[in-house]
Structures are given as C-alpha cells and as structure tokens.
C-alpha cells in the first residue's frame, strides 16, 4: 500500500492570489480520502496539482512513490480524474465516451471496447450504452464519467465535486458507486457536502483559505473538536446549568448544547430525570467543520 504525500505545497496564481498555503499531509492510497472546504478554499487547486494538471509555486508531492513534479509521465499511467464541472460530450453515446477515453490512454480498440462495456455494466448503465449522453439525466451523465475513469487502469482516481448539482436520490446512487469503487482503488474526492464526506470518506481533510486546518478519520476530527457531543432540546425547554460547553439557540427556539462526553452524559441523566425530551449525538462533521472553519462561515 502506497501513500500520497504533500510537502509544503503552495500555489500563488499570476494575479497574486494565494490558493494553497504550505499544505503538508500524508495519506495512505487506499479507500476514500475526502477533502472538504468552502468555495475558494483551494480544493480544486490541490486536486489539479496532484493530478499533474497544474504546477505548484513551491513544495513537493508524490503519489505511490512517483514525484508529481518530476515523474508526471509515469504517474499519468496510474491516475485519472473527473474534473469539476466535467460533462459527458453530448454528441457521443455512453459507450463512445468511455471508449474514446480509453483509446486516448493507449488501449487497443478491442480492449477498450471490452473494458468500456464492462465498466458501463458495473455501474448499471448497459441500457444507455448506445444512447447519446445528451438524452441522459444529470445523474446518469455523471455516472458515465465515473465509468469512463473506472474503465482505465488507473489505481488513483481524483473526483472534483462529483455530486455537485445532483438531486438527493442521484447523489445517494452515486455514493453507492463510489463506496464500491473505493474498495478497489484509491479515491481522492473533494466536496463541499459535509454529509458526503462523512458518509464516504475513510479520512477527511479540511481546507480553509488554502491551509489544511485538520486531517484524520471522522473520529480523529471529533476528538480535535472542542466538544464531542451535541444535545438538542425542543423550544422553551429549560437548559440545565453547564459546567462546560456552549449553548446555541436557533431561530425557532430549538437549543443546541455542545459539550464534552462526561458533561453530556451528566446532562442527559438530568434531562431524563426532569422528563425533558432531548436527543444526544456525537458531533457531526458539520459541527466540526463550522468549529474549525470558524464563526464567520456559520454567520454567512
């Protein structure tokens, strides 16, 4: 099992905008790595650098031992990307889309045809093989693009916001596909849907203003958060005095108490004794993201 390493990656564009600021991390190239961040946080810049599309201003990176800057030819044999806003070419059928990509990658026509058909079948797209992609739904088009990179020999697949713009059902269908794909290849996924990262990723990185502010499993991230538990109370419910924690009251009067494990269970016992309805949960990625990315994001 290899690793993906970034060492002090910095990217400053021609207009002096700093998109990445000294990003350093290492992840194993297995399963799914999810990179989350707000729009403009630097997710696409990082994925484009790693996918050898863009040169960094400084720093280094490697994937499974191949230097992203110096060994791009060797690396490109082993990676594939579905860029942000990529669309299936509308005057081609689903099969032609996959086939042409494989031919570009150097497969013979026979192998490309076989792999294209296998990949489309694997994603349940057989019925669309000879259908123009212009006639497919948004979710199916996106699946065709995933089938395209899946059909290749690449063992590292970059997906830049693959579910943006899809309806909830299509998103969940795609999650199933990505979950299965993540068992065979390493998927480096960027998203701004926190529940998507929470649902899919084995490890999560959080980018803020070009800086990596946290990285780890969801459990690691929970530990890094100031409070690990969230208690929600209905409107007008009395809030017990806290020894440690923060209380937030929403617009409709719902109350959220963020606190540590010991205090959460103390409050839970207290609320049960009072007969107050409540729910208690470990903090979600949503809570952690807002905590790490800052109050400004919450306000906006």
């Amino acid at each position, binding site marked *: 099992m290899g690793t993906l390493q970034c060492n002090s990656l910095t990217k400053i564009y021609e207009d002096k905008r700093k998109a990445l600021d000294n990003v350093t991390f290492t992840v194993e190239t297995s399963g799914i790595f999810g990179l989350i961040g707000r729009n403009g946080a630097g997710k696409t810049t990082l994925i*484009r650098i790693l*996918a*050898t*599309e*863009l*040169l960094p201003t400084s720093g280094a990176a490697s994937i499974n031992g191949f230097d992203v800057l110096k060994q*791009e*030819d060797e690396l*490109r*044999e082993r*990676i*594939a*990307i*579905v*860029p*942000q*806003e*990529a*669309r*299936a*070419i509308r*005057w*081609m*059928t689903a099969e032609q889309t996959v086939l042409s*990509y494989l031919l*570009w*990658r*150097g497969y013979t026509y026979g192998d490309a045809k076989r792999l294209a058909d296998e990949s489309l079948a694997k994603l349940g797209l057989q019925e669309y093989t000879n259908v*123009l992609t212009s006639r497919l739904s948004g979710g199916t088009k996106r699946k065709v693009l995933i089938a*395209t*990179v899946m059909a*290749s020999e690449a063992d590292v697949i*970059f997906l830049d916001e693959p579910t943006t713009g899809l309806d909830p059902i299509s998103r969940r269908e795609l999650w199933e596909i990505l979950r299965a794909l993540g068992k065979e290849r390493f998927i480096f996924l960027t998203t701004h849907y926190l529940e998507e990262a929470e649902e899919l990723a084995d490890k999560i990185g959080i980018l803020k203003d070009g800086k990596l502010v946290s990285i780890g499993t969801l459990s690691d991230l929970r530990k890094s958060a100031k409070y690990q538990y969230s208690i929600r109370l209905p409107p007008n419910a009395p809030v017990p005095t806290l020894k440690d924690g923060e209380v937030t009251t929403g617009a409709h009067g719902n109350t959220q108490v963020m606190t540590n494990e010991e205090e959460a269970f103390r409050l839970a016992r207290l609320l049960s004794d009072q007969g107050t309805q409540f729910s208690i949960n470990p903090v979600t990625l949503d809570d952690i993201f807002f905590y790490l990315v800052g109050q400004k994001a919450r306000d906006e």
Partner: protein
Amino acid sequence: MKNYPVVLISTVVAPLSLLAVVTFVSKGSLFGTAIEGGLIMNFFSSGIALSSDLSHLKNDFKLQDMVVSSPTSSRLYMSGMALAEIVYSIPSLVILFVLLAVYVRPSLTQTAVIFVVLLLMFTMAGALGFMLSTISTDVVQSFAFTRLLSLLFTTLPPVYYPITYIPKKFQYFAYLSPTTYAAEITHQATGYLVIPNSLLLADWIILVGVSVIILVIAIKNTRWREI
C-alpha cells in the same frame, strides 16, 4: 458525424460553395484553380478548426483536463484531434480530389507538389489552432477566431484564383497570408500561373519558413500543464 449526419452536409457545403461561385463568375475558366483553392481551404480550415473545437471540449466539457492527467501527450492529442478534423472533411475532400483527377489531371510530380503544400497548410493551421485552443478560456471567442482566421487566410487571399487577378497594390497585402504562397505554388505547378523560378523558390522558402516558425511558436506557447 455518425450521430449527427447534418455535420456531413455542412462540411461539404463550405469549400464547394466558393468553388461554385468562382467557377460561375469566371464562366468556367477558373475551375482548375478553384479546385486547388478548395483543397487549400479545406486543409487550412480543418487545421484551424482545432482552435474552436478543442476550446469547446476544453472549456465546456473539461476534456483537456482529463487528457492531461492521462498518458496521452499534448502532441498525440493534437495529432489525433487534427486527424479527426480531416475525417470530418473527407466528404468534401473526396469530391475535390475526384474533380482534381478528372479536370486538372495532375502528373505524379504535380500531385506530389500539391500534397506537400496541403500537408504544410494543415500542419501550420493545426499547430496554430491547437495553441489557440489551449490558451482560450471562452469558446465564443475561439469560434470567432476560427471564423476570422479562415476568412483572412482562405477567402480573402487569392487562393481560388491566380494572384494576377487582383490589382497590384492588393497583391502586397495578399502576400501577408501564407495561403497565397501555397496557392501560387499549386497554381504554378499545374500550369495555371506562370512565375519565374526565383519567385517560386521564394514561395517555397517563405511557406516552409512560416510553417516552421508557427510550429515553434505553437510548441512554445501551448499550455498543457498549467503554471
């Protein structure tokens, strides 16, 4: 082309319509030069079409990003796509080559000269078109560029007819276009234009020189892995 057959018709109509106009206006006397002009226009337009077509695939479909992150090199991508443009032109090329064989009846040497000129046109226009596509950020701009360059290099210059048909002072402007040299060489090779050997040699030197310069500029300025 298979999925949208109407594309076939549009690729045939453009070069043949100008051929028809020049032939009718000249009462048939310029049919031979117009056939050669049609071939030059076809090859130049096929090459320069890379500018808009690849820009469309790059900016609207993000295809170039997918290809950059694959084992495909920029030269292979350019060559493959350029050949695809020629495939689109096959219907009109077949008609033009049949007309050339039947009406002009070029010898083996004349055929070789025409092929070398067409190859230079295609290489030059293809390299230029590819370079423009890689630096373009907007497909609308790219389509405008393609139309403008096609017009400036294949419609306005004396490509469908001999250069002697235009007034002397406009001939100087015509020589700003490499297609003028290409047409002069083919028209001379098939006997439609008589020019001194020194001028023919100059035509070849300029045509090859311009092609090499454009190729070098294109290689240096093509944006594949972005910085």
